[in-house]
């Protein structure tokens, strides 16, 4: 009796298995390393809900993601920490390209000084990174920090040596608040720095800052939260000194003026509670996908990611998308179907 049931079950499984395999949809993506921890959590959880959909993601960096998606066309979607430029969109072999904000991140200044509790305005940070401010007791730093007795120590500037979205966000902000910085350094994932040492990755910058008395650097908010490095509040466009937190980063996306294609920098966004060095990380997709099954799978996943998927953001240190933005995005995701 039991053995016959066993055989029957085995046969059923054997017969059904190919059918199940046939329905599996494989999506592939590549790009940003910043989004990787959150993205892989999403793909995992989504796969548990929909076992027939498998998403494979390679965190090769934003630049690589843009190239693989728009030029080589080897992936179904890309992820990037900086929006594609007009030039890149024009030259893209995939048309049209849709940018969809998936999460938010922040970049925070960290420093190593005998006195703690410092705060900075954007102009001061720009002048430090231009090499105009070289001592910690400079009047500009004193003005940002009334009542603090600043030591007369030299400042050692630390920046990222590797090209990264973190640098992009940092110099994008400094270029917005300082004309001199915009002219001399400009905006990019790797720029030519007038002063300072380069560290590789967040850990490289944090390591150098920790090891060098009088050093100042910048790291991703997630990295600062995970490693519990003290970060300094930054003065926002409304004149308030705001500490970076998931809430103050989300606030930047809620108050910023976001155009229809979502390609916007949200650094120095207006609003009192806003942390000014915040950024989106985008997913790149296209409605011109050929494979209907893949198209539907990506659409369904995106709907899930901007709604239920946002629940995983905070636990991993990402600021979730504000609700008004999610409503807008759902409409645009609908067009991908």
């Amino acid at each position, binding site marked *: 009796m039991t053995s016959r049931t066993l055989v029957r079950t085995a046969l059923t499984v054997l017969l059904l298995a190919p059918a199940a395999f046939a329905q599996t949809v494989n999506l592939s993506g590549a790009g940003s390393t910043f989004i990787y921890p959150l993205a892989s959590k999403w793909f995992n959880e989504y796969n548990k809900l929909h076992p027939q959909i498998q998403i494979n993601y390679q965190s090769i960096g934003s630049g*690589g993601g843009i190239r693989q998606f728009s030029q080589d066309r080897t992936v179904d979607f890309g992820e990037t920490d900086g929006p594609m430029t007009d030039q890149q969109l024009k030259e893209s072999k995939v048309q049209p390209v849709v940018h969809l904000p998936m999460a938010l991140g922040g970049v925070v200044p960290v420093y190593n000084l005998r006195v703690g509790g410092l705060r900075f305005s954007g102009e001061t940070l720009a002048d430090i990174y231009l090499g105009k401010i070289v001592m910690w007791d400079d009047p500009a730093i004193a003005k940002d920090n009334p009542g603090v007795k600043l030591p007369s120590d030299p400042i*050692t500037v630390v920046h990222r040596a*590797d090209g990264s979205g973190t640098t992009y966000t940092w110099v994008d902000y400094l270029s917005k608040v300082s004309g001199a910085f915009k002219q001399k350094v400009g905006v990019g*994932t790797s720029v030519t720095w007038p002063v300072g*040492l*380069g560290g590789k990755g967040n850990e*490289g910058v944090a390591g150098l800052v920790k090891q060098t008395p009088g050093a100042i650097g910048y790291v991703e908010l997630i990295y600062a939260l995970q490693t519990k490095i003290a970060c300094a509040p930054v003065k926002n466009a409304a004149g308030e000194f705001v500490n970076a937190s998931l809430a103050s980063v989300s606030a930047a996306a809620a108050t910023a003026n976001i155009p229809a294609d979502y390609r916007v920098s949200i650094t120095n966004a207006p609003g009192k509670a806003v942390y000014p060095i915040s950024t989106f990380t985008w997913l790149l997709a296209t409605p011109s996908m050929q494979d209907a099954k893949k198209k539907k799978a990506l659409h369904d996943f995106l709907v899930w990611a901007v709604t239920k998927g946002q629940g995983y953001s905070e636990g991993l240190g990402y600021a979730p998308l504000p609700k008004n933005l999610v409503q807008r995005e759902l409409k645009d995701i609908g067009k991908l179907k």
Partner: protein
Amino acid sequence: MDAPAIETPEMTPPSLVLQILPEGIRRWRSTGRGADRLFRLVTGMCAAAVAGLLLIVILFMVKGSLPAIRDHGLGFVLSPDWDPTNQKYGALTFLFGTAYTSLIGMAIALPLGVLTAVALVEILPRGLAKAISLAVELLAAIPSVLLGLWGIFELVPLVRSFEIAIYRSPLGFRKLPIFSGAPLGVGFLAAGLLLAIMALPFILSVSREVLLQVPTAQREAAYALGATRWQAIRKFILPYSWKGIFGAGLLGLARVLGETMAVTMVIGNTPQIKASLFASGYTLASVIANEFTEAPSDLAISALISLGLILLVLTVLLNAAARLMLIYLNRRMGTQGAK
């Protein structure tokens, strides 16, 4: 009797192997069995594949660097500018960084490695020598990223305290160009020290093997003539093995030139040309590792591949120079070193 500790290695001298080999091949050919032919085919294909691999890599690099060379011309090699935002690229600062850090690394590792090898083979008791060799060989097994981390957290603070001591020294050392600049810890000196640590196992192992090849008769003759240990090592043992030690140095240099991760973590990644040991710099390998993933344009990628090509050419030139020097020295010292 106070006999010196002498190793008696029972190895076939390399020259003997070379004499036997052609004879062996001749005999092997004459048998002409099918299996042998197959074996010859397979081994031949393996050899061709290795050569082909090198060719493919070189072709890839030449092809990849063409856009940058077309855009910048040969000025690419000699320009000190590196400005990705304005699409201006030049290799000079990185070339300097690679050369300077390699020089520091070799200046430390070569004497240290050779002298340690002499100690291991000629002076120290066998048990201790074995223990030390094993320890140094384990050093080679440490991944360079770990050495880099150790560099950031242990070596750099140490270097910085040294730099501060120089800076504050009443003798005015800091007025010397090689000691000028702020005591940051990261920079050429820290990178050079790390490179020395990485090259040491290679130089030491090869030098030790070479010294072990010195025939017992050579040693015994020296001592029989009444030479002290120092005289025996200097006049009889080192001259006999200088060629091999030269090779050990080359192997160490090859390791040092292309080293990426550890150097990147302690050199400061600043594209500048400074004579000071305390200054921060940048190397060819480091900038490739740093900027490749997020290179902003095709031209930037091409410029980075060109840097790789320069590194390759540098290695080839150094190897060629070393070979020429070997031939020259061979002619001059041929009479002195035993054949």
